[in-house]
Each structure stands twice: as C-alpha cells, then as structure tokens.
C-alpha cells in the first residue's frame, strides 16, 4: 500500500515529467501524444479500432488511415509525414486511383492509392495503400468511387487525380492479390 508521501509525490509530479508519465502517470494523455501515435499506434477517429502504426505491420512509414474502415486523419500539410496540419479532422475514403510514375518509360498506371477528402475543410489528398489494409473494404471503396458526385469528380480531374473505374477492377485485383482471378 502506498504511503501518503508517495501519493503526494505522484500528485505533484504526474503532469510534469515524461518519464513518470510513461511509466505510471496519465497513460491516456501519453497515448494521445504525437510521439506515441507515430511510434506505437492510435485509435481510429471513425471506427474506434486500435491501429498499430509500426512500419513492420503496414509497410508504410507514415500511417494515417485505419486498415479496417480506411478513414484517415487530416494531419499532413505540405508533404507526407510532416504532421503540420492543425485541422486534425477525419478524412473519408472517396475512391481509388493509380499514382502516375515519374519514369518516362514506366507504366502509366503506377501504385494503387486511396483518395481521401477531409470532412471538415474538404481538402483532398491521395495516400498509399498499406499492406494490412482490408482488401474487401478497398474493393468496396472502388465501387463507391463510381457513384461520386459530378462536382467532386470534376474537382479531382482538375487536380490531376483520375478515379479508378470498374473497368480497372482486374488491375486493382492484380495490385492487391497479385492475380486478377481472385474470388473477392
């Protein structure tokens, strides 16, 4: 049982020392910190699932989106991983696209990317698909991308983002499963 002196010490220092915070202090506050979310994981804003952010699981260095519901968070401003955006609202997956390759003789249809739109400030960004993303959900997003409102579709086209169509389903399956004959 803790002595009164220990309790007084905890009360005094629980908000002022990182080492103490990490070991015994306000764990909830520590879990919400930028460092924890970058290095360990975070709770999805949309589906409330716990998501591991280590590159070992996802294959990407800057994990923003949830592998279960594919909702992301608006945290990057100028480039991926800069974490400079103060918006911090959730980003909805709109559809899939293929990132254009810079190589002159490379494939015109490059890496499979997710299109996200911020639910607050309506900013659009494209993000790499991670290794542990739900394949069923990704195919669901591909289908949902066919029914995008014309206004958003035009805005995406003006930004140089071409939404993957249903005619590219085989190519999407190739990117996800390595074969177009998958039953999914």
């Amino acid at each position, binding site marked *: 049982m803790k002595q009164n002196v220990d309790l007084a010490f905890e009360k005094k*220092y629980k*908000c*002022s*020392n*990182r*080492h*103490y*915070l990490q*070991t015994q202090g*306000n764990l909830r*506050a*520590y879990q*919400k*910190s*930028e*460092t924890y979310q970058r290095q360990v994981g975070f709770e999805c804003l949309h589906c409330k699932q716990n998501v591991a952010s280590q590159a070992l699981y996802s294959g990407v260095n800057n994990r923003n989106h949830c592998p279960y519901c594919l909702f992301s968070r608006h945290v990057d*401003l100028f480039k991926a991983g800069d*974490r*400079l*955006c*103060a*918006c*911090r609202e959730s980003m909805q997956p709109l559809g899939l696209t293929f990132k254009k390759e810079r190589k002159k003789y490379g494939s015109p249809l490059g890496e499979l990317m997710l299109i996200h739109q911020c639910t607050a*400030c309506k900013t659009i960004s494209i993000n790499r698909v991670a290794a542990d993303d739900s394949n069923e959900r990704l195919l669901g997003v591909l289908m949902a991308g066919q029914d995008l409102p014309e206004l958003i579709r035009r805005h995406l086209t003006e930004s140089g983002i071409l939404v993957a169509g249903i005619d590219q389903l085989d190519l999407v399956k190739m990117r996800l499963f390595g074969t177009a004959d998958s039953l999914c």
Partner: protein
Amino acid sequence: MTMNTHTSTCQGTVIGKSKALFAVMVAGQISHSQLAPTLARLIKNELDLPAIGDQVLLSTQSDGQYRIENILARRSLICRRAVTGKDTGQPSVQVIAANIDQLVAVMATSQPELKWAMLDRYTVMAEAQQIDVLICLTKSDLFEQLSCHEQAAFQHRCHLYRQLGYRLLFCSVQTLAGIAEVQHQLQGRTSLLLGKSGVGKTSLLNVLLPHPGRKVAAVNQVTGKGRHTTTALQWLTIDENSVVIDTPGTRELGLWEVTTDELDVCFPEMRPLLGQCKFRLGCHHIEEPGCAIRKAVVTGSIDPYRYQSYLKLMEEWR
C-alpha cells in the same frame, strides 16, 4: 563562545558561483563570499540559492570578509529543467541567471544546423519572464552556401519572427558584418547569451568586448556539432551600464515553471485569439472542437511550424 559582529551592510551583485563560494561585485571589487548561516538554513532548492545576476545584501565580518545575508527581489529568473535529474524520474531545476533585461538567442546560419524549434524554446522562455528577445544569427557569411530551397525557407522564417515583433540581426565575425548593430543592441542592458554549442557565442564576444582571448573552437567537421569550449557562466562587462553573460552551449532546453495553461500566452501570435475558443481559456488547442487557434493555423494566420513547436512543448508537460 564566539560572537559575529556585523560592522556594516552593503549591496552587491553575484557574478559567479562555485559550490560554496559566490563571487560578488561590491563597489567595483570582486569578493568571494559565503552564505550567512541564517540564509543557508532557508535554502530548500536551487531556486533559493543566489544566482548570477542576483542583487544581494552583504554584511562585513570582523575579518573583512563579506557574507551574503539576503537575496533582493528578482526582476526576472532564467532557469531550465536540469538534465541530470532526467534518469531518476524526478525533475529538478537549474538556474541560469537572474535580473536579465534581454535574452540573446544566438543561432548559426549554418554549421551547426539551425533548429528553429530551439529558437521557439528561447522565445517562450523569455516571454514567460516578460523579457526582451534579440535573435542573433551568426555566421551570415555561410548563407550563400545554403541551397536555393534552404535560403528561401530561411528567409521566410526570418520574416516570420520579425513579424512577431522580435528583433533579428545577422552578423559574422569573419566579415565583421552586423557587429556594430549587435553592439548597439547590447548597450545599457544586462544580456544573457543562449545558444547551442558551436554557434559562435564566445567568438561574438571576443569581437564585441575590449579584451578578447576567450577560448573558442571550430565546429567538428565530422559530426557538425560544437565542441563545448565554454564550460562555465561568465559575467562580462562591456561598460558600466552594459553586461553580457556568456553561457556554455545548451544541447537541450527543458522549460521550467511554464505550465500547460500559460504556454499559449508565451506565443505572441496566439494572444489575440485566447478566450475565443469554444472552451474559452480552458482550451489547450490540441484536439478540442471549435478551437480558434487551430482554425487560425488552417487559415494561415498562424505559422504551422510555430504551432508544431507549441504542440511539442505541450507534449513535454502533459
């Protein structure tokens, strides 16, 4: 039985300290004094000890020595979280100097790499004590060696700090550019030089002060870091009204006595917006809905890099 007979009292300024002895300037003479037993009994932590820059009351002993009887009220106190207590988990304070008029944040344009987040710590530290900040960017002759992208980013950040109301000067001890302006800014004040190791604090003072010769060393070419040449605080007099305190290079600077509730006040660009958030003054501007500060960052009124510095400092204290 011994008797301590106090012949007279006088006032002095602490200009140096070792473990038990304090160098005190009394009427232009330096005297090494001890704490009086009555004062020593009241010392509970480092904050209670006389710091460099403190005005103290001294009593003259029968043997001609001075004893520090009392510390007069401090105008300002610059202190940081001590690096030594980090491993034990118990934070402790390290007092740097007291009664400072301005904090001179010395940053190198290049070599060692300029860390703007560190500059934000200096400004927050000064704002918390309500003292002026002078940003002194040394090694300005190396600006041309930066890439075009780095030069543009550098000028953008300099413009930002000027907009925030901070005085920002470029100087070089190689070309002597901007030295006169730095000298002018130090006149009539007690200034504290703070900066990373290798940025050129002592080199600058060697040019500014009448008696050069303080030891300096070049930055390590392999690591790109300074060599920690200055190892103790030095009280240096420019003239009878102007004093500069040279400090050893600070590798890290943990804030002390700046709580999460008052951190936003230390960012001048955030002050006009305080109280306009949904949760009024209770908002920490991290994830709270209806936050006016976050909205200002999104609209571009507040620089995102400054906001990121704010978040990092908040994270340290949460």
